[in-house]
């Protein structure tokens, strides 16, 4: 017990030292509760969905951008609005001091296409952030991308029942500009931590590329 606490304190100290040093991104990527980075990012394969403006959102849409993906549904009163509000703040944090932030995108994937039409998604995502994309597709199309990411969900659709339950993962998935599944963010999500850790990862990947 004591050794666990001591280890946690030590890790905390190393992590803080990393932040204060400022330049060593690796020091900021020690494991923590919020972000899990895969040492070997998983390349995704072809998929096709449709966004809230009825445009195609497919494999090519992931190229050249860091994508934050979150699965949910608009009739979700608690987890989805809470998460999307955190992601909106995350985006603002990342975009701060950086013109445009064109190389990041936030995508809300509805697993409830029966209720979440393009119009509905359009109003919904814009409420949280004007840059957010809302996408969905038919069951097979959603299952394709969800399956590649290991995103669990279940729609307990019952004809005639308007408020059927939908179960969905609370994880936020991060796909890198090479369309590789690179990291996940898990509860408890907070915008400051996500944006700080994301920037560190991005710096590290940029350094690798050059």
């Amino acid at each position, binding site marked *: 017990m004591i050794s666990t606490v001591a280890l946690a304190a030590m890790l905390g100290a190393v992590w803080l030292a990393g932040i204060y040093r400022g330049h060593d991104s690796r020091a900021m990527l020690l494991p923590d509760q919020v972000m899990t980075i895969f040492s070997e990012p998983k390349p995704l394969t072809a998929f096709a969905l449709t966004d809230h403006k009825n445009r195609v959102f497919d494999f090519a849409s992931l190229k050249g951008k860091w994508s934050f993906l979150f699965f949910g549904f608009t*009739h979700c*009163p*608690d*987890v989805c*609005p*809470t998460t999307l*509000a955190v992601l909106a703040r995350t985006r603002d944090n990342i975009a701060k001091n950086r013109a445009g932030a064109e190389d990041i995108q936030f995508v809300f994937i509805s697993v409830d296409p029966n209720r979440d039409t393009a119009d509905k998604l359009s109003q919904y995502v814009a409420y949280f952030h004007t840059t957010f994309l809302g996408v969905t597709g038919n069951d097979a199309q959603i299952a394709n991308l969800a399956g590649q990411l290991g995103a669990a969900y279940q729609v307990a659709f019952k004809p005639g029942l308007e408020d059927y339950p939908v179960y*969905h*993962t*609370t994880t936020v998935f991060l796909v890198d500009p090479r369309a590789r599944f690179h990291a996940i963010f898990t509860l408890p999500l907070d915008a400051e931590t996500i944006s700080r850790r994301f920037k560190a990862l991005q710096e590290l990947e940029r350094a690798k590329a050059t």
Partner: protein
Amino acid sequence: MRWQHPVFVCLILALTLIVIPAASEEAGVSVLDPWVRESPPGVTMMAGYMALRNNTSRPQVLMAMSSSGFATVMIHRTIVKNGVASMVHASQIELKPSASFIFSPGGYHLMLMNPKRTLRAGDRVDINLEFRGGLVLPVAFEVRK
């Protein structure tokens, strides 16, 4: 008799003085920071949050809720199991004596269905909390973004 000792008599008197005002304190249950999350346009499901504190020495049970602002108000709990969120209906909430109970995002919440009017940040909406024994607390929830 041991119980007639003056010290015990004084103690019992003192306890009575402490307990009676607490038990008869207005409402008996305090509601702290009641708020409803503003919903995106077109969304008819909203969630409300608050903290309840039982000021009495008896259990208090939140049995039901009603509001002229919504078609239905229910107690729901978000449960995250193996990373997957689901919602379960809770029929009642028992507050132990002097205990608090918190409704917060990602946990227990008031499930507010079909608002009668568009609620925007800054608005207030009344919800009645009905406790076992007939206690009804009208609470003004603040709508927040």
